[in-house]
């Protein structure tokens, strides 16, 4: 009797352990996705086929937001074009990203996913390496409705490098975000200031504004990536993208790179000059953006989403101007490089309907939908021939010309906490007046080396 009980207990324990292992390693099982295409595998880039079935698309913005409404309109039009398709929009932005990732881990990914699964980072992130993201090479070579060439040719040249991992295209852009200065045109005009072209112009403009009793810049001290943008741009201009990427990877010592000391010195000039709005250390980004639109500060370094995001809070008649981060004299880096992102959308290989997902991405890319996107949101299209929104003509032209397009925040938000800490904390300490520029550089340099082991 005792032996039987023991055997029974052992069997139960073994079953539990086996099911545990199966669950933990289940993501590696490589099951073939089920598709509901009735006309063959169009996701591979074959001839257009009738598509049916449910399609789940992730929206960065929640239900009730203008962008969700825009996507709802697109979904209705897509359904009318493909009567057998039923589109569901799922909120998956901000703090909800882990929920979407949990669904990927559980083998139940939405079909079309917003660009937060690291598919556009240099190594493609774990999802690409695990083979869970559908390659888009074949459909990208097909003609795209409304454009002269292929889908890939229709994408802005500056954006294309961010869509591939090891020469395979994994994501399709809907739009582009760029990081640049926004300025209060009325305050600039009142004080006789032109949009700065060089860093010296920027400091001179800041001095003029400060003397007039206006805070030159507003920034949030509670969200480090936004503080980091100032250093990123100065490092891009003085050092260059390649050197900075190598330093973050721990391959070279940051402090020894040509231009690093100059970039740190320039950042110290900004942070020690009293140019930032009082209280910036304790405000969050919404408050910082509000203070810009309330006229409390004349400039804000921010993403191109600023206008769309704050549209409800912008006072009537408020005139916004934009300019790219200024160049630096004698800098050995990229003087016309830009930071930004692509909002790359990826298709889940294990999704329910990859064919419909690819068709959706092509539909979103069509010229009339891209034009509507620009007009409704003030965002920048990722496609050629689409008119840029007002104020973003220059940056769009730079992307048309294939300027260096660096990932926002140097892509460090997906790296280890040690790297993030080594990179961001010295910048915050400099902004908070706790260290000087040289100390910031040496701390960052040592920290990155240490984090790389």
């Amino acid at each position, binding site marked *: 009797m005792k032996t039987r009980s023991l055997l029974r207990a052992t069997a139960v324990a073994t079953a539990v352990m086996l099911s545990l292992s199966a669950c933990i390693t289940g993501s590696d099982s490589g099951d073939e996705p089920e598709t509901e295409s009735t006309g063959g595998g169009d996701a591979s880039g074959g001839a257009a086929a009738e598509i049916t079935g449910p399609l789940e698309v992730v929206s960065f913005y929640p239900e009730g937001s203008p962008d969700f409404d825009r996507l709802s309109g697109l979904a209705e039009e897509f359904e009318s074009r493909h009567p057998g398709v039923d589109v569901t929009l799922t909120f998956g932005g901000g703090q909800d990203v882990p929920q979407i990732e949990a669904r990927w881990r559980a083998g139940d990914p939405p079909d079309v996913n917003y660009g937060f699964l690291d598919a556009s980072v240099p190594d493609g992130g774990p999802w690409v390496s695990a083979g869970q993201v559908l390659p888009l090479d074949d459909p990208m070579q097909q003609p795209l409705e409304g454009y002269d060439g292929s889908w890939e040719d229709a994408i802005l040249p500056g954006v294309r490098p961010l869509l591939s991992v090891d020469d395979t295209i994994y994501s399709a852009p809907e739009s582009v975000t760029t990081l640049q200065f926004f300025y209060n045109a009325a305050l600039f005009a009142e004080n006789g200031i032109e949009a700065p072209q060089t860093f010296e112009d920027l400091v001179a403009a800041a001095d003029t504004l400060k003397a007039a009793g206006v805070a030159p810049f507003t920034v949030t001290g509670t969200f480090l990536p936004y503080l980091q943008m100032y250093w990123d741009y100065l490092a891009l201009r003085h050092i260059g993208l390649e050197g900075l990427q190598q330093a973050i990877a721990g391959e070279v010592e940051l402090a020894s790179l040509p231009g690093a000391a100059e970039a740190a010195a320039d950042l110290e000039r900004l942070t020690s000059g009293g140019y930032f709005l009082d209280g910036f250390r304790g405000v969050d980004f919404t408050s910082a953006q*509000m203070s810009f639109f309330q006229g409390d500060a004349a400039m804000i370094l921010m993403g191109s989403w600023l206008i769309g995001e704050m549209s409800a809070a912008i006072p009537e008649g408020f005139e916004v101007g934009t300019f790219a981060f200024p160049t630096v004299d004698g800098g050995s880096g990229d003087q016309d490089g830009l930071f930004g992102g692509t909002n790359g959308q990826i298709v889940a290989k294990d999704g329910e309907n990859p064919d419909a997902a690819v068709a959706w991405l092509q539909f979103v890319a069509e010229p009339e939908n891209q034009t509507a996107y620009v007009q409704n949101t003030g965002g920048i299209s990722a496609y050629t021939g689409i008119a840029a929104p007002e104020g973003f003509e220059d940056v769009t032209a730079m992307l048309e010309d294939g300027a260096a397009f660096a990932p926002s925040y140097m892509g460090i938000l997906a790296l280890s906490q040690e790297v993030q800490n080594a990179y961001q904390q010295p910048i915050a300490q400099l902004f908070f007046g706790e260290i000087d520029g040289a100390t910031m550089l040496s701390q960052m340099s040592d920290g990155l080396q240490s984090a790389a082991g």
Partner: protein
Amino acid sequence: MPRSRPNLLERQRRRLVVPFLLPALVLYALFMLYPAVTTFYVALTKWDGVNAPEWAGAANFTRLTEDSLFSSTITHTIVFTVLGALVLFPGAMFFGYVTQRMRLGRVYRFLILAPVALSVTTAALLWKFLVDPNFGAVQSVLRAIGLDSLASVELLGRPSTAMLMVVLATVWHGIGLWMMFFAAAAERVPAELKEAATLDGASSFQVFRHVVWPLMWEVTRTLLILWMIQGLQTFAFIIAMTNGGPLRATEVIGTYLYKVAFASSEFGYAAAIAVVLFAAILVLTLLSQRLTRRESEQY
């Protein structure tokens, strides 16, 4: 002495219990034991959350001993827990005892309890905007009464004040519940004991200090342990109000664990942190149970 064998009826009764317990046991195993066992397993692997985990042995735990970021989060977590206890317990006891004796006590209790109905995120954002240096009500009031120098202090932007603000927000949100526990405990104290002390000339404070509180000790002790567990696990208010800043001054174990797992995709390492946190809570709970044990007062 050999234990006597249960009779047939008793054995049948015990067997009868099993089917009734089974659904609860299955649910417990599925939602409690399984994740816990999995966490222990994952802590021994290197896992990015997507690809198959690689066996890493004790590497994650070794790394923890060398991780200066982790060690600083331990300090911050302890500061949060101690500071929170210092604010919460006197406050909850005070409100619990005083509102019991006031004419409109129930109304005040309702008002103090009301914030519990708010979600943590809402409460955190409310506090964040209250103390915003540009648009916050606190700063506006300070300026209005001429305290400009105080108004210019960025309460969430300075390492010296940010933790205090997070503690205050957490306590404000939850103090109503703790007050109710203390009020219920105070109500159980026989009125004749308090009357006797009053007749002997004890002040209200002395009645509380020497009569009521000793009789509430068991409740206080349990609540202390509960707070300790809550404090060590603190996460939501900090992630919403400061995200661990400024300069990592409010980075606690919970927020660090979250970032390691969901921002850096190091699930094995995050699981190791969770295991250490679990062990710390277990040890501290047992320790505090032992240290705070007193002979209970009978009444």
